């Protein structure tokens, strides 16, 4: 069935919403990456089976929804009972029968599955009352956890494609651009370029063909916002793209999805097919005469393809080598045609900007960084997960109010934002508001939204080495400063981590970094030295400890540490088979011995010891 008009879309919205609301209880099972890995699929299957067996009177199987990432990955697998919002955490397959019997059959709440607030040890029933959620504001992630992840039916019921309908029928392309400009939204991929201005430039350039490309090459390690959106709410990305296409006058779009996200490809493909079937993508959209097609382009594993010119070459089936961008891609992009390239999260915000108005969006956040921003909050933090907050929220609010502080109550050391191009900020910067400009001034950057929290057991020199090694592997190898310069920078970092660094090293690294920044061809190179530059700025003493005292204060750099078995050892034998180099010997009940000459400091014994008997020196 094709949706021929906006009126028909509105009627469908009402009808579909009515259908959803007719279920007195809906079971939302989180099928986000974290929950899936912890068995969400098995839980879903079990629910269907148990419901069939129990023959509940007022519960239909259709009321079970497989939703996108609900956010609180730390507590997954998550099962939410809507519309009440009852939030069951760490659900296991064996819990399903009880949930069906008690919560679905008799509206009882299973206390043991509820979240316990660590502040007062009290159970919290509804997720909205949990601090992790209470401090958030969701725009890009608005449908995650709320609708069945690939259901067009659910997306329409949630007001989906209304922004597009408004654009196509009540606004001309220019007005759409004006609305986006009014919202003040800046590119969520990290660059922070004004989206409205980008669209306006593209629309103005004379050309027979223009392209709209969605950058789903979420390459920053530690970031999974875009993955969650593409998998959990693919239609919002498509709707944002169609609106953009209408505004700039494009008839063909591409979603570029990185190779590591196969499920995103599947869900986007289904969403495109479903939207095509009802005439929301393709010829004569909503009977307005406007046509736009979307194809998926799969990446093949290259971080550099997140860079616009490399991405466009990759879409064209070529090696992802960037080109010098003295002519911008909005002028000469994909196949040398004017191209709008926006990130997944940016497109996900567009439908809301259109339906609620640009002005409403601009009131959220700060004057120069409007709206909200999604972050993946990971690392040594209590509440890992996916969050969205108004721009201008401080790092401290994010890490402590939402994130619940550092894991196991350890001291905070640094927070890394912006991926390999970003940097590490210390305790003294925690009260900075998170927006595009403030983080850049502090020597890091917002980036696409990965936020990795580190405790005192994280060595920042090792982190710098890690990012440099990542960049050396991901450099395309075209220009000399990046190919040879980052390689040498990494070599120096390795030497320092191995205790072979000299005082000269830091000076040489500083100079080389400055040259790589001005000399490299693309963003990967020009921001490549950031892992070093930001850590040397705030953690110079830690570098000096490695160089002068040959010590790794965090106990991470293997060449500078030794493992010692203390007399807390109970002689449990657990560490002996764990040791891959047979360095540990001992008898049951007696303190074990560790032969330092055989030990390769892999940390396996440390990880398996239940008695904290092994120390790092």
């Amino acid at each position, binding site marked *: 069935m094709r949706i021929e008009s906006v009126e028909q879309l509105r009627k469908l919205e009402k009808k579909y919403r009515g259908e959803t609301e007719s279920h007195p209880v809906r079971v939302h099972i989180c099928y986000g990456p*974290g929950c899936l890995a912890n068995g969400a699929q098995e839980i879903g299957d079990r629910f269907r089976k148990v419901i069939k067996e129990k023959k509940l009177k007022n519960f239909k199987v259709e009321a079970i929804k497989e939703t996108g990432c609900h956010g609180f990955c730390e507590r997954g697998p998550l099962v939410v009972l809507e519309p009440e919002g009852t939030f069951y955490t760490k659900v296991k397959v064996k819990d399903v029968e009880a949930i069906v019997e008690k919560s679905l059959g008799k509206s009882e709440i299973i206390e043991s599955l509820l979240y316990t607030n660590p502040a007062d040890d009290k159970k919290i029933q509804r997720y909205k009352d949990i601090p992790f959620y209470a401090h958030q504001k969701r725009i890009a992630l608005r449908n995650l956890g709320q609708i069945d992840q690939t259901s067009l039916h659910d997306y329409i019921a949630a007001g989906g494609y209304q922004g597009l309908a408004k654009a196509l029928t009540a606004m001309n392309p220019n007005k759409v651009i004006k609305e986006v400009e009014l919202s003040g939204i800046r590119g969520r991929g990290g660059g922070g370029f004004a989206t409205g201005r980008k669209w306006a430039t593209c629309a103005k350039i004379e050309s027979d063909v223009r392209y709209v490309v969605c950058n789903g090459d979420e390459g920053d390690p530690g970031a999974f916002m875009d993955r969650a959106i593409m998998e959990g709410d693919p239609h919002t990305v498509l709707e944002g793209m169609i609106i953009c296409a209408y505004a700039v006058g494009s008839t063909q779009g591409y979603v570029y999805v990185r190779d*590591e996200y196969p499920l995103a490809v599947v869900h986007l493909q289904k969403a495109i097919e479903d939207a095509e079937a009802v005439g929301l993508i393709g010829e004569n959209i909503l009977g307005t005469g406007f046509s736009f097609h979307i194809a998926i382009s*799969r990446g093949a594993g290259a971080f550099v393809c997140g860079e616009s010119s490399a991405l466009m070459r990759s879409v064209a089936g070529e090696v992802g080598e960037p080109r010098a961008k003295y002519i911008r891609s909005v002028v000469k992009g994909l196949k040398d045609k004017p191209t709008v390239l926006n990130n997944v999260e940016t497109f996900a915000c567009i439908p809301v900007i259109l339906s609620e108005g640009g002005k409403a969006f601009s009131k959220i956040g700060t004057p120069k960084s409007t709206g909200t921003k999604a972050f*993946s909050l990971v690392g040594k933090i209590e509440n890992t997960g996916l969050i969205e907050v108004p721009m201008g929220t401080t790092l401290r609010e994010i890490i402590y109010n939402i994130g619940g502080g550092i894991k196991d109550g350890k001291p905070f050391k640094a927070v890394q934002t912006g991926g390999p191009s970003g940097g590490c900020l210390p305790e003294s910067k925690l009260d900075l508001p998170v927006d595009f400009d403030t983080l850049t001034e502090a020597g890091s950057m917002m980036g696409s939204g990965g936020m990795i929290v580190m405790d005192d057991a994280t060595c920042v020199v090792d982190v710098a080495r890690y990012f440099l090694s990542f960049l050396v592997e991901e450099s395309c190898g075209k220009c000399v400063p990046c190919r040879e310069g980052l390689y040498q920078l990494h070599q120096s970092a390795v030497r320092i981590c191995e205790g072979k660094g000299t005082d000269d090293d830091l000076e040489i690294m500083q100079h080389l970094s400055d040259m790589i920044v001005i000399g490299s061809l693309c963003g990967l190179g020009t921001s490549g030295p950031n892992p070093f530059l930001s850590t040397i700025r705030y953690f110079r003493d830690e570098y000096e400890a490695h160089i002068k005292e040959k010590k790794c204060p965090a106990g991470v750099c293997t060449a500078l540490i030794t493992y010692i078995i203390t007399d807390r050892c109970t002689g449990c034998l657990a560490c002996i088979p764990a040791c891959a180099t047979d360095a540990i010997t001992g008898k049951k009940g007696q303190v074990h011995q560790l032969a330092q000459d055989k030990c390769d400091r892999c940390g396996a014994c440390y990880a398996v010891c239940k008695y904290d008997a092994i120390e790092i020196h």
Partner: protein
Amino acid sequence: MNHDFSKLPEIFDRYSRNPESLIAVLQDIQQEYHYLPCEALQETAKNLSVPLSKVFSVSTFYNAFSLTPRGKKIIRICKGTACHIRGAYQLQHQFETMLGIKAGETSKDLKYTLEVVNCVGACAMAPVVIVDEKYHGSVDVSNVKRLIKRG
């Protein structure tokens, strides 16, 4: 190694036969044979009208492609930042020692391939190891043996 290449025309037919389809076609071939056999590269060049040198260049540039046969069981260790600071390196070391191969290598008996991969976006359950297609979260070195055996 002998392969049945009769599937290739069907793969080419999924896309328009032009240079733009190169990456997509190579991905499908990789999916089918778990690596890119020489003959398949030559056929791809012919069918998409792309110089063989470009096919080779693309297939060696991107991480997703392998030009050598891979093992029956593919173990991938995520090296994202969250996984790194939660001990992915130690895991890699343990896998390498136990399997006797380095990351990026395949065991001689073609049983195992060990790979480190860029962030797979499952950071909340770091460190992550993916055995074939199954994700394993919060892995520590003591789980390595079990993962190698059972996956």
